[in-house]
Structures are given as structure tokens and as C-alpha cells.
């Protein structure tokens, strides 16, 4: 973990971010318990990081809690699913001209202090999208058995498609530059988007780099994945990956 740095020093610590407008997109669905600490930690990490909470139709007062903290809250009129919620965040980033967008889950499993490590390849100009992964290094994460097998199979499959080693296709801890924001604002998978976005980025010739980060186990809320959903997840993602092989890029990004 990075040493806590006080308020104004984030830009002093890393002059590369000084001119960049940066946004944290926090998708939240019924995360009233966790949302406050997520926002506060983001602010403690970098006070100049703007935060937008995308409330995906929560019914537990998530947005009220977030609004009290003075961050921007976008309330979707009903639950549109994580894909639609994330895309709303990217559209917000595009409309407000942000240079850097970082996805941080509203449940607190992503440690804001790891953002410094996560955005490194983007600041270096080595990547358009950086994905924080639990497996790429010694981060001590162990998922349940069946889930681990599934994650590995998709990782293999995706690695073959994008011709690059991908270890964690399920991570929602990501950062993108302007090209990534433009792509995701116009095209983003509907549900269970993480695996497909990796392929999407590859198809549009953007560069993706995995960054080993430490993640926490969920503090509150429950992992909402039921057996039926895991089966649907597996079929849906496999189908999308397979059909995706026969698809041309749909969004044209202006040349960099």
C-alpha cells in the first residue's frame, strides 16, 4: 500500500497528473453502508480527484448518503445493471472533458490508495486502459473453487483472442485515458461487462495493461451472484465472446 500523503501533495508527489482532470466513477447499487467510506477514502487519497457516484436504482438511500458528502450523484431512474451504470459514468466523463477516469466499486473492495499504482501505465503512456488484477502478482487473493476455474477459463480464452496474457477478466478496478473514455461512452456491454470490455479494447487497437493490486474482501453487502446467475453469466459471456470474434469494431475513435 502507498504511504498516505496529505492533501495537496498528490500532484506534488506525481507531477504527471498535475494537468490532468481526473474522475473516479463509483457505481453503486444498494451500497448505503459502504458508500461514505469509499468517497471519503477517495478524497483522502486525492482531494482533486472528482467523484461521480452512479446510483443504479438503489432502494436503500445510497444516493442520499452520497449527496450529503457533496459529491456528484447521477441517479438512474431504475436498475439498468452494472454495464449501463458504468457507461453512464463514462458518458459523464466524456461530457465533462475528463482526461482520466477510474472505476472504483461502491462496495469498498477496491482500495483507493492503490489508484496510484493502477494509473501508472497510463501516466507513462504505455496503456489506454489499466486493469487492477488480483492474480498478476503476490496479492494473496483466493476466490472460491468453482469461481476460480471459471475466471481462469475466461482468462485463457480472452488471452487467446487479444494475444496478450490476461489473468483477471473479472476485475472492475480499472482506469482509462481519453481514448478509453470515448470508446466506453459510446460502446459498453450490457451486463457482466468486464470480460467483453477487454476484447472491445483490443478490437479498437487500444492498449491494455494489467497491474497487480491488493483488493479487500467485501466489508458490507453480499456477493449477489446466485447459481442461476453464474450459469447465465457463463453462457452469456461465452456467447458474446464467440460472436465477438466475427464482429468488426463498431465505434471509430479519432486518431490520436
Amino acid at each position: 500500500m502507498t504511504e498516505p500523503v496529505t492533501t495537496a501533495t498528490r500532484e506534488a508527489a506525481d507531477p504527471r497528473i498535475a494537468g490532468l482532470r481526473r474522475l473516479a466513477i463509483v457505481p453503486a447499487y444498494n451500497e448505503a453502508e459502504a458508500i461514505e467510506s469509499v468517497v471519503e477514502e477517495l478524497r483522502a487519497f486525492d482531494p482533486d480527484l472528482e467523484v461521480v457516484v452512479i446510483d443504479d436504482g438503489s432502494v436503500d438511500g445510497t444516493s442520499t448518503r452520497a449527496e450529503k458528502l457533496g459529491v456528484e450523484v447521477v441517479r438512474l431512474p431504475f436498475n439498468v445493471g452494472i454495464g449501463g451504470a458504468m457507461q453512464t459514468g463514462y458518458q459523464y466523463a466524456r461530457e465533462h472533458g475528463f482526461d482520466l477516469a477510474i472505476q472504483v466499486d461502491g462496495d469498498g473492495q477496491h482500495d483507493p490508495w492503490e489508484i496510484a499504482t493502477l494509473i501508472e501505465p497510463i501516466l507513462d503512456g504505455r496503456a489506454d486502459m489499466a486493469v487492477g488484477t488480483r492474480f498478476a502478482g503476490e496479492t494473496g487473493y483466493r476466490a472460491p473453487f468453482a469461481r476460480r476455474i471459471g475466471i481462469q477459463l475466461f482468462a485463457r480464452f480472452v488471452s487467446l483472442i487479444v494475444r496478450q496474457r490476461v489473468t483477471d477478466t473479472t476485475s472492475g478496478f480499472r482506469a482509462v485515458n481519453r481514448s478509453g473514455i470515448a470508446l466506453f461512452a459510446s460502446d459498453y456491454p450490457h451486463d457482466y461487462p468486464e470480460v467483453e470490455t477487454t476484447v472491445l479494447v483490443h478490437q479498437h487497437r487500444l492498449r491494455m495493461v494489467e497491474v497487480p493490486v491488493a483488493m479487500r474482501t467485501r466489508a458490507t453487502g453480499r456477493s449477489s451472484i446466485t447459481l442461476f446467475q453464474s450459469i447465465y453469466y457463463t453462457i452469456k459471456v461465452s456467447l458474446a465472446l464467440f460472436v465477438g470474434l466475427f464482429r468488426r469494431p463498431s465505434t471509430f475513435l479519432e486518431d490520436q
Partner: protein
Amino acid sequence: MTVRVSVFAAIAALILLTVIFELIRSRRLHERYAILWLLTGGVIFVLAVWRGALGTLAHFVGIAYPPSALFILASLFILIVLLHYSTVISKLADQNRILAQRLALLESKVRGEEERTFAR
């Protein structure tokens, strides 16, 4: 049962599967709504080709002529797809209502603000 009916059923199932694939590829059909259709096409295709299984199935449910079982099964799947669509339409109708309500409230709010601005 003649081979001919199996061949035609298999061809029909393959056409269905191809059309579904192309609809997904061209983004006119979401994966979510394609799964039931793919299952329908897949089951019809397997039973058309694997006539032993179809015979066993027909015998089990008491249908003398196995190809009838194939078409009854196909209609059953269509029934399931339709039922699924009814639930999807219900959800869409709910979401549509919520959107209309939110839009109407937003409009009245904007109008109120405008009147206040002009009154000043």
C-alpha cells in the same frame, strides 16, 4: 418415420441458428434474449439428427409418430419464448412508465425555474 422429415427439420433448425447468430453479430439481438432461441434451435437440431433419442422421447410421452413429438416440442419452446417475452414486455412497460413520470416531473421543474427567472 421417413428420413426426409428429419432432414427438413434439421435444415430448418440450422437456418434458425444461423439467423440468430447473424442477429447477435449485427447487434440487433442482445445475448440475453438470444439464449432461449439458441436453446430452441439447438434442441430441435439435435433431435432431428439423433432420431433414436427422438423415438425414445416420443415413446415415453405416448406419441406414435416421432416427428409429431419434434413439432410438439418445438411449439413448447415457442410457448416458453413467448412467456419470457411477456415478462420482458412487462418490465419494459414499468421502466417506460417510470421514465415518463421522471420526464414529466423534470419538465415541470424546469418550467417552474424558467418562470421564476423571467418573473425577476
